[in-house]
């Protein structure tokens, strides 16, 4: 066993810290070149559509199914808790507010990171290891514009859309459980909800959250693929990193955003 002295352990820590800062810097330069600078979105509109399809449309199934189930569970749990206060009528607003403010943006972002984010990382990492990215460079095409940029924009657009769809199907799923099954009066489910959900406060803030998450998750996913070791082991490590870092970032940002938006106590 190699004995590592205390000093060199501290040194390792320091090196890890500097490496992390270097990675952050690299990823910022990467983002800058991909989004700004000449070239717009390489490959034009057609490539964007293709990415929107693979990132957004293909994630619909998991988002819709999860949304319905979560909405139903919320209604179920909410009903049982609220009925001990005699406030079952409030289940509609509870489901709606929980989904719009928190679960919609956050769960969608987490699912997205797992499904679309890891797929993006693997795809780009694979292109790196088969030298397709190098080929593009040598042909004179900037891979940041041609490969990365369309995927970034596809993520920025898809995630907020998916989050909205998640909230809507969740609220409807909740209504099936609450109204059709548990016997909450249909009118009070929706009326209480409309009274307490504000468009500018809750809906818009939820959308803002999902836009922030979209930015962070897609950026991490795409960068991890681009920066990985071009071996199969490197790609699988990068995919894991994407899911872990993106999930942590989403949860951390969620706390900050929630405190900023709803913390006026």
């Amino acid at each position, binding site marked *: 066993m190699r004995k590592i002295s205390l000093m060199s352990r501290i040194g390792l820590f320091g090196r890890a810290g500097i490496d992390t800062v270097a990675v952050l810097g690299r990823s910022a330069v990467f983002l800058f070149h991909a989004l700004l600078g000449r070239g717009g979105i390489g490959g034009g509109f057609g490539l964007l559509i293709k990415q929107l399809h693979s990132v957004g449309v293909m994630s619909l199934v998991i988002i819709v199914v999860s949304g319905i189930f979560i909405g139903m569970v919320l209604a179920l749990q909410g009903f049982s808790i609220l009925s001990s206060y005699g406030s079952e009528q409030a289940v509609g607003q509870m489901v709606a507010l929980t989904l719009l403010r928190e679960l919609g943006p956050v769960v969608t972002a987490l699912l997205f990171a797992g499904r679309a984010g890891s797929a993006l990382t693997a795809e780009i990492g694979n292109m790196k290891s088969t030298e397709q990215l190098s080929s593009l460079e040598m042909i004179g095409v900037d891979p940041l514009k041609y490969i990365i940029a369309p995927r970034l924009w596809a993520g920025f657009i*898809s995630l907020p859309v998916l989050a909205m769809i998640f909230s809507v199907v969740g609220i409807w799923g909740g209504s099936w459980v609450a109204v059709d099954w548990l016997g909450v009066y249909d009118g009070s489910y929706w009326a209480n909800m409309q009274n307490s959900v504000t468009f500018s406060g809750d809906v818009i803030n939820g959308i803002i959250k999902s836009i922030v998450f979209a930015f962070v998750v897609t950026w991490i996913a795409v960068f991890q693929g681009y920066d990985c070791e071009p071996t199969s082991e490197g790609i699988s490590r990068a995919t894991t990193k994407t899911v872990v870092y993106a999930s942590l970032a989403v949860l951390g940002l969620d706390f900050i955003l929630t405190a900023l938006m709803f913390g006026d106590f």
Partner: protein
Amino acid sequence: MQNRTMEIGVGLFLLAGILALLLLALRVSGLSPTASTDTYKLYANFDNIAGLTVRAKVTMAGVTIGKVTAIDLDRDNYMARVTLQLEKAVDNLPVDSTASILTAGLLGEKYIGISVGGEDAILKDGGTIHDTQSSLVLEDLIGKFLLNTVSKDAK
């Protein structure tokens, strides 16, 4: 051909997103097209607004006619100054109307209820409701009750 189905798929996806947004706006949050120019401001000073929050509703006869937009402390007379935003349609409140802080239900949130007075003069934009009834604080209530029982016993 594969391109066509892809384009259609993406188009439907985006349409679904827009539809979701509309649903959220209209059905879920009950957004109604009232522009902010259709409202006017009134102020009301309270001794105690405990529990009242911004965005609480303002009602008259149980009908929602506006909401609370700001709560500040008036440093001159040490009272709480509440800013109310009311619909222009209800612009005939007499100057001696009362604003009370009420509780919705048992657990409920606080809201403001306005009851009309009898004067002819009407409150205009920027006017102040002087007749106010503050929030019911539980401790004061208990204190009053105890005081009552004590004085009753003393008689």
